[in-house]
């Protein structure tokens, strides 16, 4: 059976022969996931899209240099995340970073009515404010649902480090959301089954 890696490599071979249709197929395969990941990293949709475009541009420019011993997805994610990290560094330098970007310029959050915010909104804000190294691991693992092995390859850190970063991120989120979670737990009368209704 053809694995994701095989499909990617097949596409890359065609891209190396200047087959633009193959490149478009590759873009289709990854653009939404990358935009989502970078949006969670940067909290700004336009920036996220621009950086994903830059990622694909770099893939195209350097297509002849691609090393088939690696996963193409790892290569693409690494480029995208490096761009995002540079952007975060730049923002930190100029202190442009603002949590309000999430609502001001980003996605239209479903719960914008006044009154108590939904758990989902609080969670999104809490993810946005995670320290970068925990956020990166968490977004790749829990939001984009990559395997720990893939995340370790992309971030070039040992598997154990990824696990501990994801764990740490979950613990931070749990603490941030504790009051809201407690409210919901009381509603669900202490049952271990998570309640899905908002």
């Amino acid at each position: 059976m053809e694995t994701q890696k095989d499909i990617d490599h097949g596409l890359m071979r065609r891209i190396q022969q200047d087959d633009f249709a193959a490149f478009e197929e590759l873009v289709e395969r990854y653009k939404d996931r990358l935009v989502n990941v970078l949006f969670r990293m940067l909290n700004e949709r336009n920036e996220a899209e621009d950086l994903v475009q830059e990622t694909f541009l770099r893939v195209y420019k350097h297509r002849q240099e691609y090393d088939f011993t690696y996963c193409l997805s790892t290569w693409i994610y690494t480029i995208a995340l490096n761009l995002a990290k540079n952007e975060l560094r730049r923002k930190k330098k100029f202190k442009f970073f603002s949590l309000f970007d999430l609502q001001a310029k980003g996605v239209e959050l479903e719960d914008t009515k006044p009154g108590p915010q939904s758990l989902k909104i609080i969670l999104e804000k809490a993810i946005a404010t995670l320290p970068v190294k925990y956020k990166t691991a968490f977004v790749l693992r829990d939001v984009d649902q990559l395997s720990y092995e893939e995340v370790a390859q992309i971030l070039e850190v040992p598997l154990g480090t990824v696990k501990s970063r994801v764990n740490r991120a979950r613990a931070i989120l749990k603490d941030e959301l504790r009051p809201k979670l407690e409210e919901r737990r009381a509603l669900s009368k202490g049952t271990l089954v998570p309640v899905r209704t908002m």
Partner: protein
Amino acid sequence: MRCRKAHWYLSARCDDTLSEKQRRDLAAHLDECPSCRREAFYFSEIKGQTAGVEKIRARADFNLRLQAKINAWEVEQETLRDHAPSSWRTLRELSVWAAHYFAGLGNILFGQRRFAVVGVVTALLTIIIWTGYDSDEQLVDNTAALTQELADLNQIGYELRLETEVADPLRDYLISGVSLSDYTSPRSQPNYVMPTIPAEQVNAQLIF
């Protein structure tokens, strides 16, 4: 099992990486520890909510914009390739410079039109030979560009000649190969008054 270990197991349970034994141990601990039961609830809530967080997708014009960027890059690459030194191109440029040299030398040294004519003819031949594969528009463009270059060169030559009462700068120019772009026009000097170019010199520039 200690609560600390149970918390690790709870996180691992989110990833479905617990062994059967670990699962049983965790279940046993949860049965007797209300605090960890609470944590278990929190973990599964966070997992569920994270999975439900809205997925941002690329905008509809994403591919078009990317295509435009790639096109722009490819045009840039072609332009660079065109200007990359190749023996073909070097030869062509050498010919143009030879033409310039004739025109400039004739003008500078003797103020004689025939040298300029030789230069212009050489330049034209150069263009015709080396751009033979190009389109007609390209030829027109090249001719126009060269005409302008020759006119500039004549002006520089004329200015140089004004200064050739002193031989050194001219010798520097001719022998040590000071490039024309390095030549500082007297026009850039303060208090410089533009000389009137004699009619015959002007004609020499308009020979095309």
